[in-house]
């Protein structure tokens, strides 16, 4: 009788084991405090390398431990904040979180898993207070070598947290894999301000720094003359 009672349980148990067998090989790692999944990023990195071959420079400017706000230029559709964040993460060995993920499925949750934060000052402030590296973008521009305006509210988060701010010039080509992310020296405010002018002036200064670095880059050569005549870089 006991065997008859046990039989359905054993069948159900065996069936569950067979069903669950493939799942045992699924990664069961956890995500970090902000929902970033380093294992997913490692899995996606080969795909990212198919699109971008990013050269990174100026990483020595970044702090080894504390938080910092990084500001990069952004050409439309170039996804510069994503490739720059990933490349800088790899170069520094610390997670670099990019700002500007949407908050709707499926893109929002996916971008959170690959290190995205919402473009909110309190979100940026929270990350900086937890000693994270946070990358924000200038306003999107159509021109590859033009740095748009910087959101002073997001810069204000760094001012509140007392975190240093670094300009990052990014450049990529829409026809080749070559890309570059160059970190500049820390931007220091020209004068001390006690009020909101501090972040407004600092945001303008950062934009100028990024612009100066982009000007220093010069144009990118694809090696194909007709393409180089067009402004294909970005």
């Amino acid at each position, binding site marked *: 009788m006991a065997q008859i009672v046990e039989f359905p349980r054993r069948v159900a148990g065996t069936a569950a084991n067979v069903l669950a067998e493939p799942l045992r090989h699924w990664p069961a790692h*956890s*995500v970090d*405090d902000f*929902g970033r999944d380093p294992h997913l990023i490692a899995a996606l990195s080969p795909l990212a390398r198919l699109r971008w071959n990013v050269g990174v420079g100026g990483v020595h400017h970044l702090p080894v431990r504390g938080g910092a706000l990084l500001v990069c230029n952004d050409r439309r559709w170039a996804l510069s904040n994503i490739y720059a964040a990933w490349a800088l993460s790899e170069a520094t060995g610390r997670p670099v979180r990019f700002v500007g993920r949407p908050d709707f499925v499926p893109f929002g949750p996916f971008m959170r898993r690959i290190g995205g934060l919402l473009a909110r000052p309190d979100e940026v402030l929270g990350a900086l207070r937890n000693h994270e590296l946070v990358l924000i973008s200038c306003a999107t521009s159509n021109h590859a070598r033009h740095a748009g305006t910087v959101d002073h509210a997001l810069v204000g988060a760094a001012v509140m947290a007392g975190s240093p701010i670094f300009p990052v010039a990014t450049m990529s080509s829409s026809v080749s894999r070559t890309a570059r992310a160059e970190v500049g020296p820390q931007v220091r405010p020209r004068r001390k301000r006690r009020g909101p002018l501090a972040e407004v002036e600092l945001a303008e200064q950062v934009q100028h720094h990024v612009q100066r670095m982009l000007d220093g880059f010069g144009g990118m050569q694809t090696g194909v003359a007709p393409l180089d005549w067009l402004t294909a870089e970005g």
Partner: protein
Amino acid sequence: MGGELGSLVAAQLEAEPWVGALVGIDVDPPRRRLRKAEFHLLQPSQRERIVDVVTKFNPHVVINLSVWEPDARAGLNHARQFTADATTAVVGAAAECPALESMVVRSGIEVYGRARNTPTRPTERTPVDPTTEYGRMLANIERSAREVGTRVGLAVGKLRLAPVLGKHVPSPLGRLLRQPVVPFSALADAPFAVVQDHDAARAFVEAARLRLDEPVNVVAPGAITAVQAIVRGKRVPLPLFGPEWTIARQFSHLFGAPIPDHVVELMHRGRLADGSKARDVLGFAPQRTTPEVIDQLFAWPSVVRVGAIREVA
């Protein structure tokens, strides 16, 4: 003091040198051996008796843990009623105690809500904007305590706990994750954080000792997504996309694990919070990380078989 968290807090308070006398009220008797504490078995609706017990004792510190999470020990309507009754009685009684210096109330990170474009990891400065019934219940507790604190001049500490998991803690999230087949949001698979009951109890003891006068998040470090938790527990994940959640909730209810709206929200939108202030203010950090608590959740036996009791004399 009768619930698992209440019993743990009482047991830890008994071991504190600064605690003289201890009185507890609950609907269930304590789950642990308490040597110093005096216990009163009272229903939340017995307001006059509660007020009588509290005012007669005239405490220096009141800790209000009387929160009924929907579908943990009672359904939504009962949970709402019990919580409201208990809050009115305990917070009201506290206001009548002349010796009272501080009140610590239990709240949760559900008070921040998970509306669109809300911060991924809210801090204590993030405005309270609950989006679930449980979150609204907790926000009401905080409001009542704050009003009494302002009126009487008390320090009011609000501990916003992440979902509490423990060996004997009734939790709809814990029950859901321990089912053999666990539904999750296929499009979101959002991350969440939890806290172990021992760590939550420690936070209450520290808050009472320091006469905390502000809100503090109590969250275990790290985070985990629903799929990661399910795979760690060797359960079968059931991906859901939207409308079928209603059916899944009914089925889960039938199998003894009802899914309240705040757990559905957790599955869809995640639930994280910044717990760094607890370290700075309370000098305390949860010992168990979120993945560890989840691993323990699956390690706890479903049924503990106790051997036959034999009389030896």
